[in-house]
């Protein structure tokens, strides 16, 4: 490597959120002019790391050095001043402003200090777009009218409108067609030729092989390998690094006999345009069916459509052979479905309320007569449900926001347990849950299934699906590409299935 100090060195970066340690002493060094790839499964800490680098999160511990000098990135503006730009997966553009206005947002060329020199802004925007190979994008157009790929170009133009030395790209190829990916790679090549460093995040190994110089692999908040050669490290080694457990997950024993007989949940030809293709699946009482796939493979959308939170464009969901009214959460809940959504805080919990009220919210009619609540009965039932799941602390009167991630998830499960639901839809049940608390949650899920619940489980953590489910459906880009009993699959096989055949190959 170069004799001069690296452009960027991060060492010992640690960052905790309530209930989970997202980064646990991560080291990363980036040289000027290289493409440094960050690899890791969902939840490995990639997003947190780049947010620290962008100045959006403050690390609890660790040192960041820029050209050999220790720096503190107090805010996104501080990072930008140094020359660090980040292009997030969810683009942060203002749809109702023009391309040129977005590119120069916050640092508009002005006359007399406040009058925006629109012509000059447009001219410089046009130059940037041309450099990015997209001269056809008009600087005067509204960003909201552009395609996703074009918006990404605008986001990149915005990054380049600063004197940028390091660009972080978070899954930039996810929304792109193959030829657009080629253009992206050409841009990355041009940038590095100019001495700009690129931190490139992707799930797709093929892309990393094509443009990457070095690879750092993150896992469970740690860098398990730093600076591997991107082009020559064998795939098996990379996959092993991504998946190798430094904490052994303990999964409960599967039932020996796979349940048969009448399925409780039946999904026929369910589809949503642009999200997932027609899907058939059945779940028996006592059975756990897993959906494995990456972000964007349509997993969460499938669960939410089954649950009625999204309206399907085709197909039918039946419970006990009775078809459900499509697109109605209330019909689904009444038929005995319960959802533990991916975004617990945003989609499931009433954060200002006590555990009791969070647990009882779906069963209030059971504790009321003519709308009048019997609060004693409510407390008792909530206590019984949370005790059954060993929720800690053993006091349902505490606010749910004070609970750890794993116990918050138990509160959501207790809600459906109390409701007496028959089909449990679990979307990333261990997201934001400490590694230690996961085994307990797995045991709870298995026990609920053994007691006769049908469970449909979505997870991007392949070992979780394999360890917990009886049967696994592997999803890629909205399509089921493989179905098999979990015991016939292993992690490498599933990762191959979900990663292969991406557009960049």
């Amino acid at each position: 490597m170069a004799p001069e100090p690296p452009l960027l060195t991060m060492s010992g970066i640690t960052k905790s959120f309530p209930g989970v340690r997202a980064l646990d002493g991560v080291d990363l060094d980036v040289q000027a002019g290289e493409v440094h790839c960050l690899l890791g499964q969902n939840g490995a800490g990639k997003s947190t790391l780049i947010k620290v680098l962008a100045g959006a999160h403050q690390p609890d511990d660790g040192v960041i050095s820029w050209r050999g000098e220790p720096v503190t990135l107090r805010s996104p503006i501080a990072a930008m001043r140094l020359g660090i730009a980040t292009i997030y997966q969810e683009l942060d553009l203002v749809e109702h402003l023009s391309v040129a206005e977005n590119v120069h947002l916050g640092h508009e060329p002005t006359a007399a200090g406040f009058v925006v020199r629109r012509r000059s802004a447009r001219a410089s925007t046009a130059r940037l777009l041309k450099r990015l190979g997209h001269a056809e994008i008009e600087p005067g157009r509204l960003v909201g009218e552009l395609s996703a790929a074009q918006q990404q170009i605008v986001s990149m133009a915005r990054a380049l409108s600063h004197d940028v030395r390091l660009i972080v790209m978070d899954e930039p190829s996810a929304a792109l067609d193959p030829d657009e990916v080629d253009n992206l790679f050409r841009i990355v090549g041009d940038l590095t030729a100019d001495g700009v460093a690129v931190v490139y995040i992707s799930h797709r190994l093929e892309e990393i092989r094509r443009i990457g110089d070095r690879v750092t692999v993150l896992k469970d908040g740690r860098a398990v390998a730093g600076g591997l050669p991107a082009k020559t490290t064998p795939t098996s080694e990379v996959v092993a690094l991504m998946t190798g457990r430094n904490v052994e997950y303990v999964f409960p024993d599967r039932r020996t006999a796979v349940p048969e007989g009448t399925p409780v949940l039946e999904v026929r030809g369910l589809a949503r345009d642009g999200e997932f293709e027609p899907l058939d699946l059945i779940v028996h009482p006592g059975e756990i069916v897993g959906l494995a796939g990456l972000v964007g493979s349509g997993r969460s959308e499938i669960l939410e459509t089954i649950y009625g939170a999204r309206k399907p464009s085709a197909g039918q969901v039946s419970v006990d052979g009775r078809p459900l009214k499509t697109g109605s959460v209330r019909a689904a809940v009444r038929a005995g479905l319960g959802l533990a959504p991916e975004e617990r805080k945003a989609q499931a919990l009433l954060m200002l309320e006590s555990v009791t009220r969070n647990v009882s919210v779906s069963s209030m009619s059971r504790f009321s007569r003519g709308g009048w609540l019997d609060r004693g009965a409510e407390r008792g039932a909530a206590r019984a449900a949370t005790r059954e799941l060993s929720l800690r602390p053993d006091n349902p009167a505490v606010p749910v926001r004070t609970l750890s991630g794993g116990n918050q998830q138990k509160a959501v499960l207790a809600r459906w347990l109390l409701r007496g639901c028959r089909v449990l839809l679990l979307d990333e049940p261990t997201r934001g849950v400490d590694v230690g608390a996961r085994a307990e949650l797995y045991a709870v899920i298995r026990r609920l299934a053994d007691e006769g619940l049908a469970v449909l489980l979505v997870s991007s953590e392949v070992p979780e699906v394999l360890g917990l489910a009886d049967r696994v459906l592997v999803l890629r880009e909205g399509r089921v590409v493989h179905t098999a009993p979990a015991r016939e699959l292993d992690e490498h096989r599933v990762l191959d299935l979900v990663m292969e055949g991406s557009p960049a190959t």
Partner: protein
Amino acid sequence: MTQHASPPRDDTGKVPSTGQPPFWRGLFAHADVRTLSLLGVLAALILVGGITKPDEFLDTRNLQLVLTQASVIGVVTVGMTFVIMSGGIDLSVGAIVALASVWATTVATQEYGFGGILLTAVLVGLGCGLVNGLLIAYGGMVPFIATLAMLASARGLALQITDGKTQIVTVDSVLDLGLRDAYVLGIPPLVMVFAVVTVIGWLVLNRTTFGRRTVAVGGNAEAARLAGIDVRRQRLYLYLLSGLCCGIAAFLLIILSGSGQNTNGNLYELDAIAAAIIGGTLLTGGRGTITGSVLGVLIFTTITNIFALNNLQSDVQQIAKGAIIVAAVLVQRRTASTT
């Protein structure tokens, strides 16, 4: 588990169950810091009134007047508190009060006597609430816009009905309720209505599924929907409730003024929102109390009264009210960040 200063009496080795907390804890759990500080402010105001105008302020008649004035806006504020707690807003309350008061006092309505006036006021309130609710819950309109439109239309309709004239009430049974003879143990009937509405509002919010759903929708509408709550129907009911409160308030106003005017209820929306916010209702929804809102109303009315007794003009009152709103929110933010 919170730490107790005093050790538990029963020595079973376990932390005492909080399922049945001791009565004093329940008392303080309800009378939280915010309620206590609002009571403190009210006590301070009464002290100020008693010191500056000892004879006039503490006079029974004056106190009856303060409470009577608080009644009309108070009933509106109870409904507003529910709406704000659900994450909504109702800007049309003042206009609905005006429309209900003039509709209920037309010559034609007055022919039906007491019942006709009361029923019309309530039905007009409910009707306006229904329109608000349908537009917001099922029409997907932003509450601010839908109720702003209702504000304009209801006021316009009120003007059209009255042609700008004051409609004098001639039904004695209505007017009698405003007279001193109708006071029971020195309490005016209007104040009793206010008290009843407050108690019912408190019970509905704290002891019924309706109240729970309101809080759930306001705290996290998406979570409420995914938990199986019919969020849209709940929103519709909430605007109906606000309309109902406006109808009741209009009837009280008719008793109080002996007339119906299209200028009635002017800026009630601002007073009601301000009282709810001073009382600790979160404008984004999910948190608030009826007790706090009612204390907010009483604080506002008491200030107005003290200022009037001291010959301070309404401009000074308005400035003071503004300052109080800012102070209350700043204090609340401080307490919210420390808990």
